[in-house]
């Protein structure tokens, strides 16, 4: 039995409560594991205050960890421009590299992209690996994965970070399999464990109601993706420079792809650019009906903001998915976030809690949204929001 209960168990039921799968029950003052339900997720082990639970499994290790050094950031580019998530990751990566006393490197794949290296140095990179080929102009899953895997195997970084974007979420899982290592998606916290030097990868788990810290303890590199707007980029230091390594030993086989791009269509005017908005007015279940989002649009118009929605509102079909804020939607970090009729499930909170100022309007004084709000208004959204619109219109006109 891989989940072992030892004699220290006193039948306190803490593990029973911690199990997300209903797999532990206390029978006659002893925890009993239902093997059909247990997924070995490990949630019970740290929950036990008596050290009575152990997962006893020998896991395969692959890498000689000491051979791997340096922190890498995948510098995602579109149309030759490095995307802001890469600069944010350089900010996070700089701290990790400093703790590990190692180099921070960016990896840039594309066509005619060498001009972008200066900005990568300004934002914290010590070194930039560039693969500049016409075939890499636009992202293609196979060649990008093959080349990144090749670089990982050759230069052996200890950590590889990438944006949890459409590209990052397609590319990095492929690289992780090819490089035979672990990957943690959508991290909201990255730190180094002072005792072991492992990367502590913290992310929401089990639907975003609790947080889990994940380790890739026996394999290297440790790979993680992070969403746009979660990490902060450093202020640019234009005096910084670094070493550009132009990687040229790329084979035709590395560049080959079984998928090809037929057409790239930008329809930005049709989609809301929520992640770039300075003010977001978001609505949830408390709005009761789709037509009530009109009220939020009016407020958003006054403050020059965008309209967001909770998962509950999107699942009810009141707003399109492109407006969804939260773990399964977009992560946002505006200057002001106004939550209207949103109770604040953790899945929503993880997507907006790093906003500079949060204003929450909710009828229920116990709504969890108030725990992250700078200003919590206990009241009726249908009264408060129009009032806020009128008042802001007044003062902003002056």
């Amino acid at each position, binding site marked *: 039995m*891989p989940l072992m209960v030892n004699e220290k168990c006193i039948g306190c039921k803490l593990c029973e*409560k*911690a*199990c997300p*799968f*209903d797999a532990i029950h206390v029978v006659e003052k002893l925890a009993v594991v239902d093997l059909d339900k247990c997924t*070995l997720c*490990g*949630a019970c082990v740290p929950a036990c205050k008596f050290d009575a639970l152990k997962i006893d*499994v020998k896991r*395969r290790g*692959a890498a000689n960890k000491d051979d791997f050094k340096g922190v890498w950031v995948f510098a995602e580019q579109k149309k030759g421009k490095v995307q802001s998530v890469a600069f944010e990751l350089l900010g996070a990566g700089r701290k990790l590299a400093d703790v590990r006393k190692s180099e921070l490197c960016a990896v840039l794949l594309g066509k005619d992209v060498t001009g972008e290296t200066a900005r990568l140095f300004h934002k914290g990179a010590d070194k930039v690996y560039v693969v500049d080929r016409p075939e890499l102009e*636009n992202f293609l*899953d196979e060649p990008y994965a093959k080349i990144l895997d090749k670089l990982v195997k050759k230069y052996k970084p200890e950590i590889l970070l990438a944006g949890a974007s*459409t590209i990052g979420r397609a590319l990095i*899982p*492929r690289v*992780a399999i*090819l490089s035979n290592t672990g*990957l*943690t998606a959508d991290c909201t916290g990255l730190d180094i464990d002072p005792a072991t030097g492992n990367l502590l990868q913290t992310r*929401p*788990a*089990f*639907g975003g*109601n*609790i947080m*889990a*810290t994940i*380790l*890739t303890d026996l394999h290297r590199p440790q790979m993680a993706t992070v969403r746009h707007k979660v990490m902060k980029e450093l202020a640019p230091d234009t005096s910084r420079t670094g070493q550009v390594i132009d990687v040229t030993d790329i084979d035709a086989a590395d560049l080959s792809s*079984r*998928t090809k791009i*037929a*057409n*790239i269509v930008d*329809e930005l005017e049709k989609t809301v650019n929520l992640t770039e908005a300075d003010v977001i007015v978001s609505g949830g279940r408390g709005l009761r009906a789709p037509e009530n989002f009109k009220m939020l649009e009016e407020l958003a118009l006054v*403050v020059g903001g965008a309209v967001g929605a909770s*998962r509950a509102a999107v699942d009810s079909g009141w707003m399109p*998915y492109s407006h969804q804020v939260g*773990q*399964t939607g977009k992560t946002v970090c505006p200057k*002001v976030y106004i939550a209207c009729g949103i109770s604040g499930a*953790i*899945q929503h909170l993880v997507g907006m*809690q790093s906003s500079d100022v*949060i*204003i929450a309007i909710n009828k229920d*004084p116990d709504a969890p949204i*108030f*725990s*992250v*709000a*700078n*200003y919590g*208004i206990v*009241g009726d959204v249908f009264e408060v929001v129009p009032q*806020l619109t009128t*008042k802001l219109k007044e*003062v902003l006109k002056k």
Partner: protein
Amino acid sequence: MNILVCIKQVPETTDVRINPETNTLVRDGVQSIVNPFDMYAIEEGIRIREKHGGKVTVITMGPPQAENALREAVSLGCDEAVLLTDRAFAGADTWATSYALSMAIRKIKDFDIIICGKQAIDGDTAQVGPGISTFLDIPQITYVKKIEDIKPGFIRVERLTEEGFTAIESSLPVLLTVVKEINEPRLPSLKGKMKAKSLQIAKWTAVDIGANPEKIGLPGSPTIVNRIFTPPKKAGGRIMKGDAVQIVTELVGELREKHIV
């Protein structure tokens, strides 16, 4: 066209809450459901079969009760179902899960298109689809919002991007992960429900699929959970109650004063 749809049984996580007093998960009344994103994968598989013929096989890895998820897929119109179930699979992360599913797919052998939901709502990683295609060494297209054309050995789809979409062509076999926008899933038919009740579901163990024991379950997983905790609460802000006009006047005054708006 032979279609494989990979699905996952998940707890209906919107119901999972933390009891703030005991800091533990409240599980009461949490149902197991087919991962909502996989419903679009099932629907798209069935639509391809309706247009191009062939069959749809649905596959999942999980505990014995994951059979219920497969029966739901069959009630919607899938033809065959395979359950990977074995204690040896327990504790698998996305690496070990992708490996096990890819080994099962190798055993099934005959397929043109593999379809997965874009991600599961419990883990939200979106890693298993690309993991499977990498193990199988086949091309992948993630975030597919529309299938434009399918011909023997050829597919053209639209992949959702941050800016809009990209039209992508690929050879077959291919693995697709699909997003909500792709279709509107149907409800089960009476005929489907009858079939779901009686269908013999293949149950495969790690040995059945020829999996390397070192690469499955917790032993085969490069990642492990180190710690689970409730997120630290932010220090509460200012709570305002009472007359709406008065509160709003006060709030806007403060926002102006602090140059927030």
